[in-house]
């Protein structure tokens, strides 16, 4: 493959925006359109993150942008009915299901509780103009990441999810993102989620590809959690191994809000997850978990940034990787405790197992602390399966492969057990086992016509 420079990609994307800026803005609300110009200028000025820059130290972003992708202004007519095509539903999991095709809402199943809104961005801005205006691009604009700026410039598809004050959503809201089409495609999906005061919801994101094409999903989700809200965000990433995914989830937590975020990365050639949490109200709590199981030539980079801006907040992070094949895993964790954010509790842990000789792991847990009455800790390990445990099991007649499998499943279980939807947790465990056994991590009747790996 011919090597392209990052400047060439930047110029190409900027030119693409300039050429189609009218079409991109057409039919979109002013709240979105007014952000585009400064975003593209920022992108044009700074370009894609340079290789080796601190934020993307272990990840060359050209791994995602180095291919040629098409770009679609709107939903494509010829795309398959994802509802039909996608039969990967978790058996027995009763959810409000929203399918999203290449960034655009396709179908919606079940009647959401009164007041809960799930719409496209444009409709969202019409239905709740105040909420939309106040929150759209508020968190994203503060981030010094040009990939987020790129998304802001191109944003059209995506969804707006609003849960009114004190509404408890009874069933999980499942958002199934499918990428399909006959050509390589870049999808800039932009989501805005606002959880009202005292509201509660569980959201499950599933990212899939329906074709063996090179997709590039640049996903930005802004989440605003108002006082006392509770959100569980589960994310299952399962793109094909030719595709790239850059997923930025930017969360603001207000007083007393509780967040549970859990990211499972199974497939996807190049995956970069940015999870940034701003603790903006006292007594907020964030529990963040991640599990990646890369093999082959996968590159998976999890980056988290927890900003403790106010006192009395708690954050807990656990990220795990099981690396096989020639895969590369990276973890960058950043905890910032601002001056006066006293009584902060922040814990961060990154544990990794390298199974194969050529797998590589890079980890960079960081603490930056400007307040003294805090308890902060982090830990990172890279190692192998415990030989003693293996020996113990083999002594008792368990085959080597099976014994390894049990240990790896147990390693993964620490993340799985945090899931608060029991059926989903079972499904997770099953998918993880399939993945570790080298099978496709989707269900038996999966339509994904992937290459045999």
């Amino acid at each position: 493959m011919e090597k392209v420079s990052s400047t060439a990609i930047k110029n190409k994307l900027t030119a693409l925006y300039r050429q189609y800026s009218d079409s991109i803005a057409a039919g979109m609300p002013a709240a979105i359109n007014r952000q585009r110009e400064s975003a593209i200028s920022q992108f044009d000025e700074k370009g894609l993150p340079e290789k080796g820059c601190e934020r993307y130290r272990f990840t060359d972003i050209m791994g995602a942008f180095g291919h040629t992708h098409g770009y679609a202004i709107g939903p494509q007519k010829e795309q398959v009915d994802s509802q039909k095509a996608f039969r990967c539903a978790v058996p027995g999991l009763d959810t409000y299901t929203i399918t999203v095709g290449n960034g655009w809402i396709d179908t919606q199943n079940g009647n959401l509780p009164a007041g809960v809104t799930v719409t496209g961005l444009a409709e969202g801005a019409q239905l709740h103009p105040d909420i939309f205006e106040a929150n759209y691009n508020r968190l994203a604009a503060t981030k010094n990441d040009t990939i987020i700026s790129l998304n802001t410039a191109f944003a059209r598809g995506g969804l707006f999810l609003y849960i009114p004050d004190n509404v408890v959503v009874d069933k999980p809201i499942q958002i199934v993102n499918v990428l399909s089409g006959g050509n390589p495609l870049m999808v800039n999906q932009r989501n805005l989620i606002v959880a009202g005061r005292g509201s509660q919801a569980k959201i499950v994101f599933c990212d899939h590809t329906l074709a063996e094409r090179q997709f590039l999903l640049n996903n930005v989700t802004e989440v605003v959690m108002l006082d006392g809200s509770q959100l569980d965000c589960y994310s299952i990433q399962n793109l094909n191994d030719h595709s790239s995914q850059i997923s930025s989830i930017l969360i603001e937590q207000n007083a007393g809000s509780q967040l549970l975020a859990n990211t499972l990365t199974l497939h996807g050639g190049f995956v970069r997850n940015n999870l940034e949490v701003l603790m903006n109200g006292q007594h907020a709590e964030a529990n963040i978990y991640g599990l990646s199981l890369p093999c082959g030539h996968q590159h998976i980079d999890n980056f988290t940034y927890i900003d403790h801006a106010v006192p009395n907040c708690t954050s807990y992070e656990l990220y795990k990787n099981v690396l096989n094949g020639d895969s590369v895993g990276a973890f960058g964790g950043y905890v910032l405790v601002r001056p006066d954010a006293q009584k902060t509790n922040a814990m961060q842990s990154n544990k990794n197992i390298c199974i194969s000789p050529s797998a590589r792991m890079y980890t960079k847990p960081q603490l930056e602390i400007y307040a003294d009455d805090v308890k902060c800790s982090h830990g990172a390990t890279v190692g192998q399966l415990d030989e003693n445990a293996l020996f113990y099991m083999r002594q008792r007649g368990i085959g080597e492969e099976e014994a390894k499998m049990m240990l790896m499943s147990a390693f993964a279980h620490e993340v799985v057990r945090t899931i608060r939807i029991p059926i989903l947790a079972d499904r997770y465990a099953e998918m993880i086992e399939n993945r570790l056994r080298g099978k496709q991590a989707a269900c038996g009747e999966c339509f994904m016509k992937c290459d045999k790996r």
Partner: protein
Amino acid sequence: MDNTNIINEVTDSEYKYGFVSDIEHDTIAKGLNEDVIRLISSKKEEPEWLLEFRLKAYRHWQKQTMPTWAHLDIPEIDYQDIIYYSAPKQNVKPENGEIDPELKKTFDKLGIPLDEQKVLSGVAFDAVMDSVSVKTTYKDALAERGIIFCSFSEAVRNHPDLVRQYLGTVVPPTDNYFAALNSAVFSDGSFCYIPKGVRCPMELSTYFRINAAKTGQFERTLIVCDDDSYVSYLEGCTAPRRDENQLHAAIVEIVVMNNAEVKYSTVQNWYPGDKEGRGGIYNFVTKRGLCKGVNSRLSWSQVETGSAITWKYPGTVLLGDGSSSEFYSVAVTNNHQQADTGSKMIHIGKNTRSRIVSKGISAGQSQNSYRGLVKVSANADGARNFSQCDSLLLGDRCGAHTFPYVECANNTAVLEHEATTSKIGEDQIFYCNQRGISTEDAVGLIVNGYAKEVLNTLPMEFAVEAQKLLQVSLEGSVG
């Protein structure tokens, strides 16, 4: 508990080495260019190859820019406003083993015995003031065993082959901005060679003193420990109290051959600046050891209490199979001090082991960062690392930061890193108070216990000094 009062007392504790000695200096003009480098080289009567080495480094330095990645707020440094060579004038002939009484008085005041008869402990000293080595003790006694311990300039004169063989092999002149600067203008330092199979009978020590104003100190230390040998090396440093900042950029290179062992200890006590953050030494140091031989071992111990800004990452390249390295550090920052320090362990050989124990203590408005790298290359089968870096915060206006990097490309490596940050627990203080120990003493007790693991690794004489230093630096400080 009147914490504020007690904290205020800390800032009043005095830097006791802040005096200036009235000694005449042979000083060159300010500024840096190729002529200055030629002048330094000619003053030291250096051979042509060394001048070339310096010029090459200088040309490389000119192309580089000051690194900005550290968590430090470094005011712009005008490299043309620094004197690059300043030697105290001696009215006696040092070649005859004599020493100028004024100089002797200075080192006596610092507690460094230059008089061999009066020495109580078996420590050989090389005393360096500004740009030159003033005196090296016990040289003859050491020479009997084949050990070379002398000033760097002397080594260049008397053992040019050894110096040429090893100089720049561990820290190449192109390594980084400050290494290039040092390689261009380095003045003096110590050279030490331990021959095969020799266990150095006494501790070797270099004491660095900055005295002259407006000068920078750029010393260079080279230690070579041949097969099956052992040496314990100590380094100490102080500087006068001045309102302007002075630059110190040193290089330490250590080569450890088969089955040899080097123990390198530092007590760094450069003038840290006053409580408003005026003055102090900028300390930009590149220290690196190469465990070249099989089963070689290098151990770093450091107590860092001085300097306005510290930028220092002693590291070891574990090249020989079975080699091992340890890094123990206590870094204390107070008032407006800033420190960005830590260790690098590069595992290349098979079955290499490393251990990092770093204890940071921040007080006042200081910023204290740990920055470390543990890197395991693809061939380093069976590599093992354990890193622990703890931070203790005393006061609510200081910062403690941790930036570890772990890079692993081998599936048989086992790497562990852990870090914690906290203040002294109120329950701990309460427990001590209950038992009749004043808050003041309780803090001393807790800090001492906290740093014990590192202090225990220092040679005895140094451990006592370090413990005292810790007490002075943090006197009465309560979080």
